[in-house]
């Protein structure tokens, strides 16, 4: 009887052994634009004995399945409008965050993000972000990916224009040798509106920022500098005062005053304030309560909760000031047909889905722009944009695909230019369910992908590896943190420890 019992235990142990030394296998979900990359990753993982199947989805459909928690691993990307992890790290990696598709949760990271979103001085914010990066790095909730460079190109005759990390496409200093007009081939098929309160996308913003000014603006590298505001000061953790530039006029001749600034933000913050519709932009400002006028050239921003000054400044770059008197006179519909701003270029004619012609505003407060006319042409197909630049129909094009850069570089009189990207690309893992609820497995995958070869071959080197979810262009980036190295041997070891023998 006793002998039989022992035999039973041995058989059971053997069975458990066979079952535990299993092969890691999972489905990697992706979309068309990253299918090549996903295949490359799959074949690299197969080399260490991980069985990966790539499934290509339509993007909207995949997102629903991811959010339902029914997928294992998926390529995702997330853009940042601030040069701060506030709208990248925070939504993606806070427990229950809006973009937290990996279902990652770490109380210490949550606390770090809380500190960084509510503390008003820079040093503790930077320290909190740094700590969060260390935590996230070792938790490895994703297979950390890369940031793509923003590649644009222009005719060599164009001067004074640079691509910007935030796609602002400022034309105020641009000039073109032997010409008075610049035509830009936009990457989109249409921009959304001429009403600065009613859009969310960067392409619309690129056009609007040439027609309207904001209180502050970015340099191409992302530093905040004065525009309509000459200076600002923090009164307390919730209150910020701005001094406006005197003598600024809108393109219809009206002076720009504190009333216009108050009106602009009132339209955005108040539900239903735009003809019964609510601006989708309020979220960008954080817990802003209201903006009030102190006198003709001073306004005050009052927050409900403490808010970092640097985040407010980053946000204000994206809010174009509209003329109250004109808007009230012509109404929203009238404004959309004949928009008026205080920027260097004034709307002339055109339509949102084809081409928009702007002409120089000669009384621009900072001095008139160099060219007489700027045209934004919607050209959604990259090959068409490249062809139009080569044929001389347009002088600048947005979004050159990495594989077409060579074609442009070999052409005479064309310059390819790049700016830092602000969109993080990665593979998110479902941290809630096996096999990716095991940190060793997640770390192993980070060690098993040879990103160097993928980025070189697929993105022709126009991509930069990221150690975590944070962007190098963002505030508080920890440059001392090295990305996971390519180390298949160590990856195999980790997988074995986690119970996958990889054979």
């Amino acid at each position, binding site marked *: 009887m006793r002998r039989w019992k022992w035999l039973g235990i041995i058989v059971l142990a053997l069975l458990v052994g066979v079952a535990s030394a299993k092969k890691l296998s999972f489905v990697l979900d992706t979309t068309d634009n990253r299918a090549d990359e996903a295949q490359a990753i799959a074949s690299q993982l197969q080399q260490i004995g991980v069985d990966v199947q790539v499934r290509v989805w339509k993007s*909207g459909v995949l997102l629903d399945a991811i959010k339902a928690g029914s997928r294992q691993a998926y390529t995702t990307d997330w853009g940042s409008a601030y040069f701060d992890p506030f709208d990248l790290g925070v939504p993606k990696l806070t427990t229950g965050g809006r973009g937290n598709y990996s279902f990652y949760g770490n109380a210490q990271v949550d606390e770090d993000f809380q500190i960084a979103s509510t503390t008003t001085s820079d040093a503790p914010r930077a320290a909190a972000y740094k700590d969060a990066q260390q935590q996230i790095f070792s938790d490895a909730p994703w297979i950390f990916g890369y940031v793509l460079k923003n590649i644009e190109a222009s005719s060599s005759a164009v001067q004074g224009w640079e691509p910007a990390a935030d796609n602002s496409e400022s034309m105020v200093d641009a000039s073109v040798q032997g010409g008075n007009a610049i035509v830009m081939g936009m990457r989109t098929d249409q921009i959304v509106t001429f009403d600065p309160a009613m859009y969310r996308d960067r392409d619309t913003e690129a056009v609007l920022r040439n027609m309207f000014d904001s209180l502050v603006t970015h340099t191409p590298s992302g530093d905040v500098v004065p525009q309509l505001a000459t200076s600002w000061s923090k009164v307390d953790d919730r209150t910020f005062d701005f001094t406006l530039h005197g003598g600024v006029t809108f393109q219809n001749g009206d002076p720009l005053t504190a009333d216009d600034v108050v009106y602009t933000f009132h339209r955005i913050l108040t539900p239903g304030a735009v003809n019964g519709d609510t601006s989708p932009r309020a979220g960008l400002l954080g817990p802003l309560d209201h903006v009030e006028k102190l006198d003709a050239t001073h306004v005050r921003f009052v927050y409900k909760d403490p808010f970092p000054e640097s985040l407010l400044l980053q946000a204000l770059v994206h809010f174009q000031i509209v003329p109250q008197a004109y808007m009230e006179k012509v109404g929203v519909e009238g404004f959309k047909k004949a928009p008026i701003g205080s920027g260097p270029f004034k709307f002339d*004619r055109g339509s949102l889905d084809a081409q928009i012609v702007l002409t120089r505003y000669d009384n621009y407060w900072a001095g008139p722009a160099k060219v007489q006319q700027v045209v934004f042409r919607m050209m959604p197909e990259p090959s068409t944009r490249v062809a*139009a630049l080569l044929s001389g129909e347009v002088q600048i094009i947005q979004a050159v695909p990495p594989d077409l850069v060579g074609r442009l570089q070999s052409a005479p009189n064309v310059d390819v230019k790049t700016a830092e990207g602000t969109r993080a690309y990665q593979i998110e893992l479902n941290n809630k369910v096996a096999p990716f609820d095991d940190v060793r497995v997640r770390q192993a995958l980070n060690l098993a992908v040879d990103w160097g070869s993928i980025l070189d071959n697929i993105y022709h080197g126009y991509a930069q590896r990221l150690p975590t979810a944070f962007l190098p262009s963002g505030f508080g980036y920890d440059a001392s943190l090295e990305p996971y190295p390519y180390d298949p041997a160590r990856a195999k070891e980790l997988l074995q420890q986690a119970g996958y023998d990889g054979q």
Partner: protein
Amino acid sequence: MRLLKILQRLLAALPVALGVAVLAFLFLRFLPGDPVEIMLGDTQVSKQQIAELRHQLNLDQPIGAQLVHFFGQLSHGQLGTSIVKNEAVASLIGNALPATIELTFATVLVALLIALPVGVLSAIYQGTWLDRAVLSGALLGISMPSFWFGLLLILLFAVEAHLLPTSGRISSTLLVDKRTGFMLIDTLLAGDLRAFGDAVRHLVLPALTLGVVFAAVLARVVRSSMIEALHRQYVTTARAKGVREAAVIVKHALRNALIPAVTVAGLQVGELLGGNMIVETIFAWPGVGRLVVNSIFARDYVVVQGAVMLYAITYVGVNLLVDVIYTFLNPRIVL
């Protein structure tokens, strides 16, 4: 009598359009993906803000209530407001439609100019080298993907030869005020012949891209029905009567051979009026195809519903037109 019949057919199209609209409405709601989530993109917004937006857009109501709301609007002659673009669907479609119609007309012109002579000649010279060349050319035309052919034309005629513009409907320097939305008509109304010429030049490449494929299909139909007609007894009779060969071919054979060609052309025109997403994207042509496909990706239900109704009405209309053309080609056919 004929007018009455046409009117009847048009009225019969209404229930078809409504049925299609209901189907489109339901299918779209079952499609995964949320317009509000897609619209807000990668931003740090609170759940409350998302809920508010959804409420404002009427998306927080049950599907039944949304359907009732949709038909309520429809009974007032309104197609609703785009979720994403915050603009009336009728005006969105109305803006995009002239571009598509203009391109469709140009495409049909190109296709007829190629397909009719080529199809007729290859029928007359059936079995010769000319016929074989036409047949293989037609096969090539049908098999060519339009994105490839379109880009090839751009590289050849715009980049290398500098003969034609790459894309768009008119040069920015010649842009005229919008009145009808038809660039050819608007430039004429503005009395600007240079702009008119420029608009025509912009039409050539997209019309060729679509027209060559259309012509390839059409030429094969014209050829085969022409061969059949040329062997008919009435052709022999006409020839025996001493009718000139040209008249035999055009008046006797071609007219009868055109009926199958008109059928095929009608189907193609119906499709073209729906817009071709690929060609519209390559040539930066702001037409209906792009509008609809982008609206599907953005889950902009309201726009897609409106467009699908338009498609249904267009197909019914084109079919009716085809039937009317039949009666002219062969008076024995009645509506």
